[in-house]
């Protein structure tokens, strides 16, 4: 195995040397090939080999022999998904360039493909989350009478599927497709609400600390220092243990506690940023002028500081949302986050995760947990792409 890999690497080295030599001979020593370092030539060969291998794997995935096809099934799906998403993002960018106001048209013109993919994905998630009850064929908690549990995804009766349930049913007979769609509403909605709350808390206190300074700033900042010294997932788990004892006694759902706990933990990071940005703004002349005019604290924070701090806070909102979303997913995956019977992606991955082990024989059975986990990953990747592009644009970084 290792010998094969080494042999391939050495062989590619020889190929790269041959490629450069052939290029030099064929183009009469053109500068492109004459000055090409060996590393670059190797890179070209490596890229070509990877592309060839992907093509070969795709054909294997389409082969008639089910054993071979099963083995490359997921690679095939990944390649198809990648191409479809790339085309969709490309079409979306063309659409954005020709439709809309002058401002959006200009924005789409300079947009990389990754960012347009991100915006498209976020839009799809938003539509799914808002119209979940209309789109989902069944209810999220509905145990359909007369339907077996653990129907395989795929809808093929020969492989244990059912055409009525394209993604199958879970361990107690609920429709997985409906639960995935409702998951967009629950998981994304709760994460969004938590992030908003964290920004409200952190932003308010951060701006207050920056404007007022003095002992308030000192007390808040030291408090935040202590809270940030504990790793956030660990602290959240500790507080969730305590909340899980309190929740039934007070009659408040555990999910409410989770939102509050994560919002408080994450607001410390927002506080740091809001305070730093606010302090840079507070020393400006126009703030001095507003103070001399006799404006109150509310006017200073909302009319002078907030509009000037929007850009960094907006980028931070995207990143913070990703963190909150991943924390909630991790907590749910560990079994202490969003509680059943609410449909939630993290819980679904935990409940269905064992099916991954059947991928060799029934690749369809393994898709359900991967779809739920992939739904989380896709959204965070999309948000990250958009934030990356926004930061790149606003920082003016060129190299």
């Amino acid at each position, binding site marked *: 195995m290792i010998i094969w890999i080494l042999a391939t690497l050495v062989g590619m080295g020889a190929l790269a040397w041959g490629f450069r030599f052939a290029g030099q001979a064929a183009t009469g020593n053109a500068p492109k090939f004459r000055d090409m370092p060996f590393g670059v030539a190797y890179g070209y060969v490596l890229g070509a080999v990877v592309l060839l291998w992907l093509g070969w794997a795709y054909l294997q995935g389409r082969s008639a022999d089910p054993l071979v096809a099963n083995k490359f099934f997921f690679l095939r799906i990944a390649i198809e998904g990648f191409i479809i998403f790339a085309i969709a993002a490309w079409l979306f960018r063309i659409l954005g360039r020709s439709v809309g106001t002058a401002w959006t048209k200009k924005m789409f013109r300079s947009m990389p493909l990754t960012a347009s993919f991100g915006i498209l994905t976020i839009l799809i998630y938003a539509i799914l989350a808002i119209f979940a009850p209309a789109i989902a064929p069944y209810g999220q908690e509905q145990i359909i009478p007369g339907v077996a549990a653990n129907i395989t995804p795929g809808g093929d009766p020969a492989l244990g599927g059912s055409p009525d349930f394209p993604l199958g049913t879970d361990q107690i007979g609920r429709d997985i497709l409906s639960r995935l769609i409702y998951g967009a509403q629950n998981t994304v909605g709760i994460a969004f609400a938590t992030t908003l709350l964290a920004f409200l808390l952190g932003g308010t206190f951060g701006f207050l600390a920056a404007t007022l300074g003095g002992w308030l700033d000192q007390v808040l900042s030291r408090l935040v220092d202590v809270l940030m010294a504990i790793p956030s997932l660990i602290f959240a788990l500790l507080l969730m*243990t305590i909340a899980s004892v*309190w929740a039934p006694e007070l009659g408040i759902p555990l999910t409410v506690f989770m939102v509050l706990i994560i919002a408080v933990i994450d607001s410390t990071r927002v506080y740091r940023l809001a305070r730093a940005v606010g302090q840079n703004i507070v020393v400006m002349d126009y703030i001095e002028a507003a103070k001399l005019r006799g404006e109150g604290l509310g006017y200073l924070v909302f009319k002078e500081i907030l509009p000037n701090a929007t850009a960094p806070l907006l980028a931070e909102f995207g990143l913070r949302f990703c963190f909150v979303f991943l924390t909630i997913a991790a907590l749910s995956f560990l079994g202490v986050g969003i509680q059943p019977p609410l449909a939630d992606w993290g819980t679904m991955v935990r409940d269905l995760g064992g099916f991954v082990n059947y991928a060799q024989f029934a690749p369809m059975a393994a898709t359900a947990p991967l779809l739920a986990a992939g739904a989380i990953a896709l959204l965070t*990747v999309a948000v990250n792409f958009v934030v990356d592009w926004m930061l790149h644009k606003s920082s003016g970084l060129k*190299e």
Partner: protein
Amino acid sequence: MGNVLTIILQRLLLGVLTLLIVSVVIFTAVNLLPGDFAQNILGQGATPDAVASIRRDLGLDQPPITRYFDWLGGVLRGDLGTSFAQANFASFTGTDSGATTVAAQIAPRFANTMFLAMVTAAIAVPFSIILGILAALYRNTVFDRATNIFTLSSISSPEFFLAYILILFLAVLNPIFPSLSNIFEGMAFSERLEKSMLPALTLTLVVTAHMMRMTRAAIINLLASPYIEMARLKGLSPMRVIVKHALPNALAPIINVIALNLAYLITGVVVVEVVFVYPGIGQLFVDSVKIRDIPVVQACCLIFAAAYILLNLTADILSILSNPRLRHPK
């Protein structure tokens, strides 16, 4: 040199102080629980006499401040208390052999987690630095963009997604590594390494992006400086310019980021250990959270926080040591 020592001592004292305050926070949080240990152990049919006697034995009738110092003193002596789930009557009467203490439960698992973190660091650090150097060398090419997209995707995916993908491709479809990391004492090193390979690879994917991007950014930042231009004009190859001239000066931010990511590793193990059923401290923590085994939760929390603070402190001190401007503050 004395100056540096004072700064480091200051930071160390600050770290100890932070740890103390964190222990107060953890203790207070745990004491917010309704009811107390005694009632929970004895359950519903407890007689008031029995509750009172266990309270007296555990010192629960003392005021919170006394209890805090008792707990802290115990922690400093290595006595983390008695685990709730493993507790039996003997452990409260002092006739216990010691197997049910929290310390006895945590010690072997702590070693396992450290092993996993070290394997991950041994893979992730060289991998991400080499990737970062290559991305800086071939910046703004297809290679750079592909690496960028790949690392950004891997850092923004949840750990369990990466873990299941790795299980799918490396354990189920191509049985190279085992998907369950059942590690036990007295296992041969090579076997242990093989069994902890998948969790280590998952964690590598999680931490690589940050380190690789920092390496790339730190090197590219330096490429505009005059001495790099000089090296280029001398006719050195681009690889040599970066490795010999840019990298040594870019080391400070890179080391800092590596230490921070190792701190992240210590807490990132929780989810990964649960997926692979790796017998580490993270799994013990999650199990204890589920059954509300408070003494274990408290102890694990303290250990995670201590590791986190220690590594952050190391990052801080290393960045002071590697930067002459911070070494001699005005």
